[in-house]
């Protein structure tokens, strides 16, 4: 039923798009069928898979870096008052620095390189992960801590069975919000300083004023990211909540 409603709303949206495009200038608003034709053509030449693949790779690497550093940082902030006092201000600064500024500075300082691109994406995402994890680490159940002390849980047992299970919902939330942030930023980063990837392709077709290609590329990439959320992150979410 829920799926049917979703499909229905999608169908209505497409029909509306098709209808409006019939009256609009095809250069500024191409019909869905034209976009589909472009996507198929681009898939045939291999350009689509190459660019989407390159961008996905960047998202993946920076995602892993931002998640692992962000989780560690967040736990440290949530568990230690001193760490929180020392790092709260820098964290707020990075959190409120526009993605564009971080990206430009990364390219200026590290050159127009792959490393700079990945650092820029990771640095944009990391503070969000840290802030979410800090909330998680602050909310640890003191009763369970006392139980773990009384029963002399060793460090490994405590991490695996007391700490991580309490943080898992926060990690999944950070991952889900983080991945959508990362893919939006990665396109800007590519647009500014990379010779390939979805962001580069969109910029290239923008200079040609090929709106069909711009819409085609963004729709394909959006679908890929939605699929990752639906088939990877949501099942993971359900898995960590299985005991509820």
């Amino acid at each position, binding site marked *: 039923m829920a799926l049917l409603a979703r499909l229905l709303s999608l169908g209505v949206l497409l029909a509306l798009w098709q209808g409006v495009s019939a009256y609009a200038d095809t250069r500024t608003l191409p019909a869905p069928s034209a976009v589909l034709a472009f996507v198929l053509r681009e898939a045939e030449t291999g350009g689509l898979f190459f660019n989407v693949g390159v961008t996905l790779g960047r998202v993946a690497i920076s995602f892993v870096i931002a998640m692992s550093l962000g989780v560690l940082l967040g736990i440290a902030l949530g568990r230690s008052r001193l760490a929180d006092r020392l790092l709260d201000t820098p964290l707020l600064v990075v959190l409120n620095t526009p993605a564009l500024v971080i990206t430009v500075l990364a390219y200026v300082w590290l050159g127009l390189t792959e490393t700079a691109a990945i650092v820029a994406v990771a640095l944009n995402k990391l503070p969000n992960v840290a802030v979410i994890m800090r909330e998680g680490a602050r909310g640890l159940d003191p*009763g369970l801590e006392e139980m773990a002390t009384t029963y002399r849980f060793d460090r490994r047992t405590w991490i695996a*069975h007391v700490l991580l299970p309490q943080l898992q919902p926060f990690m999944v939330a950070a991952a889900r919000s983080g991945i959508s942030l990362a893919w939006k930023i990665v396109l800007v980063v590519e647009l500014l300083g990379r010779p390939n990837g979805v962001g580069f392709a969109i910029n290239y077709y923008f200079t040609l004023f090929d709106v069909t290609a711009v819409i085609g590329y963004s729709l394909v990439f959006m679908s890929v990211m939605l699929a990752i959320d639906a088939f990877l992150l949501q099942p993971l979410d359900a898995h960590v909540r299985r005991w509820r």
Partner: protein
Amino acid sequence: MSAAGAEAAGEIGGRPAPLLTVRVDRKVYRKARTEAVEAVRGLAFDLHAGEITCLIGPSGAGKTTTLRILLGLDRDFEGAVMPEPSQVGIAMVFQDPRLLPWRTIEQNVRLGLPRERRTRALDELFESLGLSPWRAHYPGALSLGMQRRVALARALALEPRILVLDEPFVSLDDAAAASLRALVVQAVARSGTSVLMVTHNVAEAIEIADRLLLVSPRPAHLLASLSLDRPRTERDRAWGDATRRTLAARFPGIVAQ
């Protein structure tokens, strides 16, 4: 100290050495910007093998504080616990079951054991507590009474020399409380465990205790240490009521009529 006289009256001569000697001369909570609160002032008792000791006092009287000290969780106090709590083998059943909700019943019990003993056979223990059908379930699927049994199983799995119970039967219906109580008594009878139970249910304490420790309101000090010599099996309702009335007359502030 007012405890001294009562202590002497309750003690029997020529007993084996106690498993644990607890002496809290003074325990003060100091928090920034608030007035210091004196929780305990002069509370001393011994725990002996095979004996059920009940600590009775009004709520907020520093009973839980005393337990935390006895378990070695709180070392900021004046006094001494001998020998060192970590060396004695103390297992604790908390007032709320404090199980790991994301681990199964069996995992909860096993995780309470030191790593090298985690794989030991537990069939008999689960069977004796009526938990066998629930081993693979998560705690959330169990009632509070059953969760308390799991907490008891986790403590008993350690084969402790001292079992500490903090208000273990509150908010249970009479049947569940009675069956859990029976399980504790059985465990003591079987392995000679020393039990220290904190409660404010005097009737319950009279039913199972070998010794009652009556504690004053805050700052807690020992008012009396009383032995109940009648065997548990011969304690009937009339005897219980009579004992309770006697106590109520002697300690009107602590034991209600």
